């Protein structure tokens, strides 16, 4: 029992990153008393991300100052149910955020809307190739809403972000320079597309030559002076190279700090408490109603916070863990396939080729945003025929540069020594003169890939860590090998002096060491009934209807794209449903 009990609020928002801040902002005008609890510290552009301190690769990029501290809380990982999970002791593969703004502070800003097929994956694949095309252990599902229903929310999130890009399809009309595969949008991007890197130009030329459709990556990186719908001003990005893993000092990369918080902090009915780690959602004796949350404050005191509505916005992994710790929803059992919390965990499947040119070509990798790149979608999702290929899903292929940080982003040919004078020569000869072509691929969900609580390892507060049971499956390995061939074709057309291929082989296992992406998904998926999902399309818990769960945990499977476009849009969609439907008539918004 918590010793201290605080005054009740109408809505408690747990976790104050992208989704939590959007929810608070969208409801700030409703008059509700809103409290946000954030486990990390308060942070703002000034002084926390101020130039020149922010250009410190060691502190932010390598020692990961802005991220969750693994010593306090991490996950355990194993490849299969028969294995013992080991703690993810030293962060590599993915990097959960911490502090005000969450991962929205140090993300790259690549901003996508899903393709239409991404939202109805199971029905599209079944229609096109027949039911048996989907492997029996693949638990792929449709989203519970249509693209058209979500379009205004994708649009709104792009406007909040001051996003840059070339539209490829406005109201069905294809537009040169954009992504011809994109679903119809009502409006263009609010700011013009980013400048391209030289590597992007070369890639675009080669891809076009092969008949593909390259375009400049859309991004939450503002390229013109811009005021967003909340009245917050964004400045023009100057391609500083310290975007990914860093806070933007220039008010250009969209983050809660640069797009939401200045407006939100004006509202007197909103309160933020930092260093407040929520350890569970409390429910009444029926288990069907949340009464608030319990958190631990900076002094280590356990505090009970009563609330009428609980919003979980603590990032995909933490949300699933909080649901399990709070016993909300039935935990997934991989043996029987029953239960839903923890089900359909997925990640992303990447590959890359490093291209080394002689000194004639200069790529200036330090001049970049977290999202400078040229992409093509020709082999993504259902944009191509899978009939003879035998796999579901696909990947983007791109030339992306996210900075030229010399410690972490140094590339040398595989033949170069790792140390000594030979290494010195290799970094001297290659730092400015190499580029990459990479792929980011979808990952389908499987019966055997899921999340639950670890029986052995605990966090700093003595609570069980989340356990991840995940490995690459044949479907994705086949996919990435197909993509490798395509990417290599483009690379050959670019004629580098030398290239090194880094795609996973058919026997590869998931490896927690190299950074891949923080695009972990699933575990509290959305669906059209309580048997197949944890939340309905408004991200409302089926079991405890005054709990809403925001973030990529609601994705039924992972798409090839970065997640935040859907994450932001669904948070706005949920906020709208709360404002216009739930407040007037609290209870389930979808009848099960």
């Amino acid at each position: 029992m918590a010793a201290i009990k605080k005054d009740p609020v109408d809505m408690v928002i747990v976790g104050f990153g992208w989704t939590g801040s959007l929810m608070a902002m969208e409801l700030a005008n409703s008059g509700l008393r809103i409290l946000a609890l954030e486990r990390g510290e308060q942070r703002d552009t000034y002084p926390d991300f101020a130039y020149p301190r922010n250009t410190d690769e060691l502190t932010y990029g390598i020692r990961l100052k802005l991220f969750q501290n693994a010593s306090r809380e991490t996950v355990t990982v194993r490849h299969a149910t028969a294995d013992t999970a080991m703690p993810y002791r030293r962060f590599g593969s993915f990097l959960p955020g911490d502090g005000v703004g969450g991962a929205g502070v140090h993300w790259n800003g690549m901003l996508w809307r899903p393709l239409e097929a991404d939202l109805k994956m199971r029905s599209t694949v079944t229609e096109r190739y027949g039911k048996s095309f989907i492997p029996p252990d693949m638990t792929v599902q449709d989203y519970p809403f249509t693209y058209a229903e979500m379009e205004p929310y994708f649009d709104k999130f792009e406007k909040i972000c001051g996003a840059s890009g070339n539209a490829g399809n406005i109201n069905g009309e294809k537009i040169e320079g954009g992504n011809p595969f994109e679903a119809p949008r009502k409006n263009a991007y609010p700011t013009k597309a980013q400048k391209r890197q030289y590597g992007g130009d070369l890639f675009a030329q080669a891809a076009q030559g092969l008949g593909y459709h390259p375009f400049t990556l859309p991004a939450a990186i503002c390229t013109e002076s811009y005021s967003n719908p909340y009245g917050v001003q964004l400045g023009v990005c100057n391609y500083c190279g310290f975007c990914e893993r860093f806070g933007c000092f220039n008010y250009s990369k969209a983050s809660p700090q640069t797009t939401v918080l200045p407006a939100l902090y004006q509202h007197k009915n909103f309160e933020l408490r930092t260093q407040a780690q929520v350890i569970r959602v409390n429910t009444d004796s029926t288990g069907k109603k949340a009464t608030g949350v319990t958190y631990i404050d900076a002094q280590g005191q356990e505090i009970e916070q009563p609330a009428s509505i609980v919003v979980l916005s603590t990032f995909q992994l933490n949300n699933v863990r909080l649901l399990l710790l709070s016993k909300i929803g039935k935990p997934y059992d991989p043996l029987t396939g029953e239960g839903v919390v923890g089900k359909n965990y997925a990640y992303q499947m990447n590959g890359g080729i490093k291209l080394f040119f002689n000194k004639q070509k200069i790529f200036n990798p330090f001049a970049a945003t977290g999202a400078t790149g040229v992409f093509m979608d020709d082999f993504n999702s259902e944009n191509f025929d899978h009939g003879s290929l035998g796999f579901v899903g696909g990947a983007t292929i791109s030339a992306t540069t996210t900075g030229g940080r010399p410690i972490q982003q140094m590339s040398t040919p595989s033949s170069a020594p790792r140390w000594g004078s030979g290494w010195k020569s290799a970094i001297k000869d290659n730092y400015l003169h190499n580029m990459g072509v990479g792929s980011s691929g979808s990952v389908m969900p499987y019966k055997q890939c899921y999340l639950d609580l670890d029986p052995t390892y605990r966090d700093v507060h003595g609570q069980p860590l989340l356990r991840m049971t995940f490995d690459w499956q044949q479907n994705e390995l086949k996919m990435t090998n197909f993509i490798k061939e395509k990417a290599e074709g483009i690379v050959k057309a670019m004629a580098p002096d030398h290239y090194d291929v880094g795609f996973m082989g058919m026997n590869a296992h998931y490896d927690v060491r190299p950074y891949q992406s923080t695009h972990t998904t699933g575990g509290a998926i959305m669906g059209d009934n309580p048997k197949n999902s944890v939340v309905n399309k408004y991200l409302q818990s089926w079991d405890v209807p005054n709990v809403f769960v925001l973030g990529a945990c609601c994705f039924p499977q992972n798409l090839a794209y970065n997640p935040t476009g859907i994450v932001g849009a669904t948070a706005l969609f949920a906020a709208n449903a709360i404002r216009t439907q739930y407040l007037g008539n609290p209870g389930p918004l979808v009848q099960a």
Partner: protein
Amino acid sequence: MEKKIETQVPSRRRFLQKTLSLIPLAAAGGSSIVALSAPAAESQGVSDHYVPTYFNNDEWRFILAACDRLIPSDSNGPGAVSEGVPVFIDKQMELPYGFGHLWYMHPPFASAIPELGYQSSLVPRETYRQGIKAINQHCQQQFQQPFASLGHEQQDAILHDLDAGKLTFDNVPGKLLFEQLLENTKEGYLADPLHGGNQTLASWKMIGFPGARADYQDQMNLPNQPYPLGPVSISGKRSV
């Protein structure tokens, strides 16, 4: 510009040789300080006045010698020692990082397949302490001298064996020490000088990284063109 580097390198190399040759004397004297009698050196790296905070004399001699082999001074410019990398590593040991406070270090510890990542119970401070001791013992047995007193060829051979996982010890896998050392040496050499290494921005200049300039709007309009300015550090150091 080029000329200046040329003239600096030999003097740094001389300093380095002096540093390395003088250390055994200081260490043999039993002083807790690696004291050097040399007059104020030109190098901004490991000065003779630097007193390591974490490492003891034997360890410090190892760090100096090993860093010098991992990133030597050569015709491409100064190496790790004259750029202050050993100082960087010593400072890192006193930060939460050195104590393993950035990693999940709760038991139980067990070995696992490499894909599941770091599973050692050693934190960086202990990896160095136990690893250096083990290597020096090994060198004493094989060559009757600690690592730092060996010739370059012998040192390189030992480093290659560690790197390849061929040399390992009871308390600490040789590969673990090697990875720790190589990672920290590169970090110190390529990081902003505020952390103790890269004191003359020599690595940034050599590769063409402009450091903390952080403003490349115009450069984006000049594909395939060299960036005209040399590097600058967070505190305003320049390389020329």
